[in-house]
C-alpha cells in the first residue's frame, strides 16, 4: 500500500530544462545556397572565412561531375552496413587510393567524421589499458576515450617533459606489478594540428618516447591532412618521419577533401581489426557512393596539383602576420595553420560576457562582408574548455586583397567594439 503512495508522490524532473531564448548557440546562422567562397549568410553576401574548405574543392566542377556520374549509377543511399551488401566498388577504390596516397598498407572508411576516431580508439583500448592524451584533444577523441573505459592520463598541451614524467611514473608502477604490466596496453593519442589551439604536435620527440617507453601512437590528422607536407600527406611528411612508425592515422574527409566521412590508415595488422570491432563501421550504414566518388576525385586533384599546399601555407602566413597587433585580440595558432583562433587579450570576467563581446565583433564583420564564426564548444562536457574565440579559416580560394580586407576589417571591429 505504501508502495502505491510512493509511486503516486514521485515527480520526475522535466525531460529537458528550458533554454533561454537568447542563448548564443540556439539561433543558427542560415546559409542560403552553397557554403563556398562567396557565402550568403542570413541574407547578406560575405566572403567565407568560416568553412573548413581549405583546398577550395567544395565548388570544384570536376568533383561535382564525378559525384553526378556516381549518382546516376548508384542512386543516393547504400541501404545497408558494410557487412550486408553495403560495400560498393567505390568504397573499395577509395580505400585503396587513400592507402596508396598515404603510403600505408590499408585504409578503412567511416561514413561520419566524428565517428571515425570515436570508434577507432575503443576498438583497441579496453578497460584496464592506459591512454596518455593531450589536454587540448578535440571532443571526438574525448568521446572515444570515454567509450573505451580505459585509464586516461592527461598531459599538458605539447609539453613533452610532462608526458615523460607521466611515462616514468607508469614505469615505476609497472615494476611493482610486472604481471599486470605485461598485458596492459599503452597508447598516446595526439593530433597533428590541434583544432582547439592551432598548434602542431612535436612528432619526432614523440617517436623517441614511443620506442623508449614502448607505447603506441594514434595520430589524429583531421586538420593536417591535405595541408601539411610537400604533397599534403600530413604531419609525417612535414617532419619526414617513416609512416610505419605511427600505429594508426585517423582523419576526416570533411575538411580538405570537401566530402563527408572519415578514414583510418596504417598497417593491415592494425586496420583490419576495425572491420569487425569498429562500432561506427559494423553497425552503421556505409558512406553514400556519390560522396565517396567526390572524395576520389578530390584526391586526384590533390595528387595532380601539389603546389596548392605551398600556396595555402603562404596565404596562412600572410594573414597570420597581418592579424598581429590588433589591440584587444591575440592570434593563437601556428603561422602555417589554416584554422586560427582570435582570443581576447583580457577577459571581461565571465565567459558569458566574453562570448557576447566576441559576438559583437563577429556581427560587425558580417555586416561589412566577411563571414566569421565563434568556435563552438559544449561548455559542460569538455574536459579542458578552451577560452572563447573567433575562428578564422584560410582557404586557397581567397585572394590576397580579400585577406588584407579581412585583416583590416578585424582591426576596425576590435577598435569599435573593444575600446
Amino acid at each position, binding site marked *: 500500500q505504501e508502495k502505491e503512495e510512493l509511486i503516486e508522490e514521485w515527480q*520526475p524532473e522535466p525531460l529537458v530544462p528550458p533554454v533561454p531564448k537568447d542563448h548564443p548557440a*540556439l539561433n543558427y546562422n542560415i546559409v542560403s*545556397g552553397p*557554403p563556398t567562397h562567396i557565402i550568403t549568410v542570413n541574407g547578406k553576401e560575405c566572403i567565407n572565412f568560416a568553412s573548413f574548405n581549405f583546398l577550395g574543392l567544395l565548388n570544384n566542377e570536376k568533383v561535382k561531375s564525378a559525384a553526378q556520374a556516381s549518382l546516376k549509377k548508384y*542512386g*543516393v543511399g547504400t541501404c*545497408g552496413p558494410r557487412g550486408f*551488401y553495403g560495400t560498393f566498388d567505390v568504397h573499395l577504390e577509395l580505400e585503396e587510393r587513400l592507402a596508396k596516397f598515404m603510403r600505408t598498407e590499408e585504409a578503412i572508411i567511416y561514413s561520419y567524421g566524428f*565517428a571515425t576516431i570515436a570508434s577507432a580508439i575503443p576498438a583497441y583500448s579496453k578497460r584496464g589499458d592506459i591512454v596518455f592524451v593531450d589536454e587540448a584533444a578535440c571532443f571526438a577523441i574525448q568521446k572515444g576515450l570515454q567509450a573505451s573505459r580505459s585509464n586516461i592520463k592527461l598531459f599538458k598541451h605539447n609539453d613533452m617533459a610532462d608526458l615523460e614524467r607521466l611515462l616514468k611514473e607508469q614505469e615505476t608502477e609497472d615494476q611493482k606489478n610486472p604481471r599486470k604490466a605485461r598485458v596492459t596496453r599503452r597508447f598516446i593519442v595526439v593530433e597533428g594540428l590541434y583544432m582547439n589551439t592551432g598548434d602542431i604536435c612535436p612528432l619526432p620527440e614523440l617517436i623517441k618516447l614511443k620506442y623508449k617507453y614502448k607505447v603506441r601512437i594514434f595520430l589524429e590528422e583531421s586538420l593536417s591532412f591535405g595541408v601539411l607536407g610537400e604533397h599534403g600527406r600530413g604531419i609525417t611528411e612535414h617532419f619526414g618521419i617513416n609512416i610505419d612508425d605511427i600505429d594508426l592515422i585517423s582523419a576526416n574527409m570533411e575538411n580538405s577533401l570537401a566530402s563527408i566521412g572519415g578514414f583510418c590508415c596504417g598497417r593491415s595488422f592494425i586496420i583490419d581489426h576495425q572491420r569487425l570491432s569498429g562500432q561506427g563501421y559494423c553497425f552503421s550504414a556505409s558512406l553514400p557512393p556519390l560522396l565517396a566518388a567526390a572524395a576520389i576525385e578530390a584526391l586526384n586533384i590533390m595528387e595532380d596539383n601539389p603546389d596548392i599546399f605551398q600556396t595555402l601555407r603562404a596565404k596562412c602566413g600572410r594573414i597570420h602576420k597581418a592579424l598581429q597587433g590588433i589591440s584587444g585580440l591575440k592570434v593563437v595558432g601556428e603561422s602555417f595553420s589554416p584554422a586560427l583562433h582570435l582570443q581576447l587579450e583580457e577577459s571581461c570576467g565571465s565567459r558569458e560576457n566574453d562570448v557576447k563581446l566576441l559576438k559583437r565583433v563577429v556581427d560587425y564583420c558580417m555586416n561589412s562582408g566577411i563571414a566569421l564564426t565563434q568556435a563552438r564548444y559544449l561548455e559542460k562536457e569538455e574536459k579542458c574548455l578552451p577560452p572563447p574565440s573567433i575562428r578564422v579559416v584560410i582557404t586557397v580560394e581567397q585572394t590576397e586583397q580579400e585577406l588584407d580586407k579581412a585583416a583590416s576589417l578585424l582591426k576596425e571591429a576590435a577598435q569599435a567594439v573593444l575600446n
Partner: protein
Amino acid sequence: INHIVHNGALYKRPFNEAFEETPMLVAVLTYVGYGVLTLFGYLRDFMRHWKIEKCQNATEREEQKDFVPLYQDFENFYNRNLYMRIRDSWNRPICSVPGAKVDMMERVSHDYNWTFTYTGRVIKDVINMGSYNYLGFAQKTGPCQEAAAKVLSQYGAGVCSTRQEMGNLDKHEELEKLVARFLGVESAMTYGMGFATNSMNIPALVGKGCLILSDELNHASLVLGARLSGATIRIFKHNNMQSLEKLLRDAIVHGQPRTRRPWKKILILVEGIYSMEGSIVRLPEVIALKKKYKSYLYLDEAHSIGALGPGGRGVVEYFGLNPEDVDVMMGTFTKSFGAAGGYIAGKKELIDYLRTYSHSAAYATSMSPPVVEQIITSMKCIMGEDGTTIGRARVQQLAENTIYFRRRLKEMGFIIYGNEDSPIVPLMLYMPAKIGAFGREMLKRNIGVVVVGFPATPIIESRARFCLSAAHTKEMLDTALKEVNEVGDLLQVKYSRRRLVPLLDRPFDETTYEETED
C-alpha cells in the same frame, strides 16, 4: 508459443508474434558442432604456434615485437577459427544501385578465405533480399534522383562546417520542418549519421542520477549512447511488459541504489522493429506504463519508419496512437528513404535543447545537401504531396509482400521469428555449418541473402534474414521462395513442428538486473 495480447482493449488490431522454441535435438547438435569447431581451432592454433602450419595472419612489426601485444590471443580465437571459414558470406561488394536486383562483383579465394581476389566478372541481376530498401527508393532514375542531381550541381557534395558554426543550410531547415510535419509532432532535428544520432543525443538528455530502462535486444548505438551518458542502466526482457513494470515499480519505490534518493528521470529505450528478431514493440502497453509511472519514452524507429502503418508514418501510426505520447521519436533515413542520416523529433522545448546541447550540433559536420534533397523528395512522395499515389502504393505493396512471403515460408515448414507484419523475416538455421552453406547456395542460385551468427545473435540461434522491399514483384518473391524451398530441403533446415500450442502468455520470470555506473 504464440503471444496472446492481454490488455487487449489497448490494441486496435491483432498482434501476432511468434518465437517457436528451438527443437531439443537441434540445440544439442548445434552445441556439438561448435564444440568440434573449437577443438579444431585449438589444434590449428597449436600447429601455427609450432610453425607446422603457415600463419597467414598479418603480424606485428619487427621493431615493435617487444611492445605489449595489441590483441589478446583469446579475443581473436573466434575470428581466426570460426569466422574465417565462412567469411565469404559477408562484405560482398556490389556495383550497381542496391535495388530489388543488384549486380555483384565475383570474388574467389584460393586460400580458404584468408585473401580474396576479384575475377573481374560481374554476377548480374541477383535478387537482393539483404539491403534495407523497404520502400524501394534506392533508384538511379526518377524524381528523387533528378532533384538530388540538381541540388548537387548547385550546392556541391560537402558542407565543411558544423551546424552551430557555418553549416546550417536553408535546406536543413526545410528538411526539419518537413520531418516534423510527416511525423505529426512540433519540431525535429536531423543529423548526418543514424548511429551517431543515438550515441550523441542520449548523453545530452540523461546523465548521472537518471535511470535508463533498455530492452534486452537494443541496437549497439542505443547501448553505446546509454553507456556514455553515465546513467544507471537496467535491462528488461525483450518486449516483456511485466518485466518492464516490475523494474519501474522497484525503481520508484527503492530509489537510487546506495543513497536511496529518488531518481531524477526514468527513460525507457525501445525500438520500433528489432532488426534481428523481426518483432514489433508493444507500443500501446509501453505508453500505458509510461503514463502510469511518469517516465519518458525514447522510441528508435530505425527500421519501422516508412515500413509500418498505412501511411508509412511508422509504428505509432501502425497502432493508431497519438505521436505526442512518445517523448522522443528517433529514426534513420537510411532504410526507407534511400539516403543517410538520422533525426530526432518531439516537442519544441526538446528540440531547442538539442540544438544547443547536442554533441553533434556543436562538433560534427551537418548533412550533405544532395542527401537532404533525396530525403525531402522521397518523404513528399510517401506523403502524397508530389501529386502522385506512388508513395501510398509502395507502402501497400510492402505490406502485401510481407504477409505473402511470411505465410509461404511458414507453410514450407521453416521456423520464422517475429511479428506477422514486420518486413524483416528471420529464418532460423542454428548450426554453424549451415550458416555458410545457406549463404553460398543461395548465391549460386542468384539470390543474395544475409546470414547472421554470433555475436550479433545468441550463439545457438544463428539465422538467415530476409529484408522485403516494395520493389520486389510477386515474380521475384516466387522465384526466391522456390529457391529457398530447394535449399531448405538440401540443408534440412525445415525445423518447424507446426504444433499449435494453446494460447498462453509467456509466463513471468525473474528479471535480471545489470547496473553499470561508469
